[in-house]
């Protein structure tokens, strides 16, 4: 039997308001205040960030244009002097898996897993060094790869860019998602990310790993012949710059 009464009441302008209600009101007010302050601080930080992002994007645009022009200029110069200008070898690769998952040798299966290509028409960026080149050599019949240009990188990341946040595949709908994970490496917006990937920067590994493997559509217009190498008229292996055309069709 309940002989112990309800909470103590407090007189409030004639009407009795239970003390518990008053306490809750006070606490709710405190929380609301804290929330408002936090929101204001966040807003300020965001607007400051925005300016920074704008300037960075502008600088990158200039940088890319300058790079292009520089290449052309060097070529012209060389031609004028009677020599040649050889393009530097590409630093960045884009790999697309073009074969399915059945009947694979376990070692090549493992290598494709290491490259994060677990599904057909999955694509990843890759740094070029001896290790990766050798890995690619082992899985050549299953993939096609090449050197993506600025437009490819931009379009892939904008349209099909998803990030790995808390082991989940989260769409890149806001710069805050990128800042949350890659902020400590100085990458705070999508343009930063694109720049890091394109100009294989010091934090390429983290930036690339942040990007979930791209899930591309089957190419419009089809592939030529999956089972043959590109040089034989098929699709597998290194197709250097023509990967861009394929990306246009798959994105």
């Amino acid at each position: 039997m309940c002989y112990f009464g309800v909470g103590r009441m407090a007189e409030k302008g004639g009407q009795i308001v239970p003390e518990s209600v008053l306490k809750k009101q006070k606490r709710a007010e405190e929380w609301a205040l804290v929330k408002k302050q936090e929101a204001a601080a966040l807003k300020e930080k965001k607007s400051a960030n925005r300016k920074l992002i704008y300037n960075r994007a502008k600088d990158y645009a200039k940088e890319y244009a300058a790079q292009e022009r520089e290449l052309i200029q060097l070529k012209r110069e060389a031609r004028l002097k009677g020599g040649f200008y050889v393009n530097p070898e590409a630093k960045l690769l884009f790999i697309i898996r073009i074969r399915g998952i059945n009947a694979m040798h376990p070692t090549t299966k493992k290598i494709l897993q290491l490259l994060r290509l677990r599904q057909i028409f999955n694509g990843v960026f890759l740094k070029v060094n001896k290790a990766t080149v050798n890995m690619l050599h082992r899985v050549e019949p299953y993939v096609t790869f090449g050197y993506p240009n600025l437009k490819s990188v931009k379009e892939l990341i904008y349209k099909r860019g998803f990030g790995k946040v808390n082991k989940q595949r989260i769409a890149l709908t806001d710069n805050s998602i990128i800042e949350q994970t890659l902020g400590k490496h100085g990458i705070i917006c999508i343009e930063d990310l694109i720049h890091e990937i394109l100009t294989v920067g010091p934090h390429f590994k983290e930036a690339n790993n942040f990007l979930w493997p791209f899930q591309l559509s089957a190419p419009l217009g089809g592939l030529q012949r999956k089972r043959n190498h590109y040089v034989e008229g098929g699709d597998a292996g290194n197709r250097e710059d023509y990967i861009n055309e394929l990306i246009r069709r798959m994105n």
Partner: protein
Amino acid sequence: MSAAAARPLVTVQSLESDMATDGAAANSVPLPDVMRAAIRPDIVTFVHGQISKNARQPYAVSNRAGHQTSAESWGTGRAVSRIPRVAGGGTHRAGQGAFGNMCRGGRMFAPTKIWRRWHRQVNVTQKRHAVVSAIAASAVPSLVLARGHKIEEVPELPLVVSDAAEAVEKTSAALKVLKQIGAHPDAEKAKDSQAIRAGKGKARNRRYVSRKGPLVVYGNEGAKLVKAFRNIPGVEIAHVSRLNLLKLAPGGHLGRFVIWTKYAFEKLDSIYGTFDKVSEKKNGYVLPRAKMINADLARIINSDEVQSVVKPIKKEVKKAPLKKNPLKNLNVMLKLNPYAKAAKRMALLAEAQRVKAKQDKLDKKRKPITKIITYFCCLSMHLRFWVYLYFIGSLLLVSQSRASLMQPGWKLPCPVYLSHSVICLLQEEASAINSASKSWYKTMISDSDYTEFENFTKWLGASQ
């Protein structure tokens, strides 16, 4: 004394008979601890179920049933099933199937036996816990009402009546007592509910059913009250030291309406003990403790101790926004890259400029020299000749110093003095034609492989 003061008091209802004897106002008794024990419907249901099995009488079929024949199977080869058949002849029964549960007149499947386990053992503590729970439940008005008793006119629960009730001898007096204490509606309900049982039970000596009324509990042995109350339909009687769970929680449902006499009520403490004191009558028994001392969850949650460390309520759970393609949706693009607008604008302007510049260039290359010709046509034949001469002269001299031509005072060996504007026009046209021809020459050179040839010869060291 202090214990009594701490416990709530229950007023004893006085009857007409004791107004004279007592003379005092309403008496009150402290609530025994039993009524504050934990109410455990799960234990009560279990114990009630087990205990109600204990009054059963065994039933079984005869152990000879179905076997009082000497039937034997005919075996195979006789175009009949192999069930044992009754031997003999001369009667319907001969050759009929026997023994099997599927046969007519055969023994049933698994004939019921009397050595079925009819009774159930229950731990003493469990039984006591159940009784204690049931007594506690009888003190909660909502539980008693929920069980279906009519206690709207009862002044207080638990209902304690003065000891004068134990002396009641006549049933008519008993009814008056019930009416005085407000228990009559419940008894009336029981009386009205008498009906013939639905089902076969009516033919098995269980013809009538009715609801349960109040349970009257008394404390003195041999009280006259037993005989007075027992014939009232619905009313049951019990001695306080022999309380029966089957009566306190009929059907396993808690909350029987109990009417206590004062004597019985006071005895409860000694029979069941208190939370700290061992019972006197039950060896070593202490009232069961509840799992939660304070079971008022709302109070606990709203207490200061809990509320002070609670985090703010998350009212709006953010749902992931639908991903829109920034390459197609400008607003989404701007959200990600604020520079995109400026970049797009610059690109558009640059494109427009480029188109315009190209068009201008083409126009310049293709445009015929129309001004002079129209003017030319207006002049007289005579003037035309001199203008033409001047024109040719200026063309020839254009490679030399251009400055000299800028002077309008270049004299013609002619009385006609060409106007300033005409001379300027002529000079403009001349320079235009010159520059056009120069650029044409240059394109001719660049379009051909002439430059390459030059370099090539340099390598070879050959000279032209």
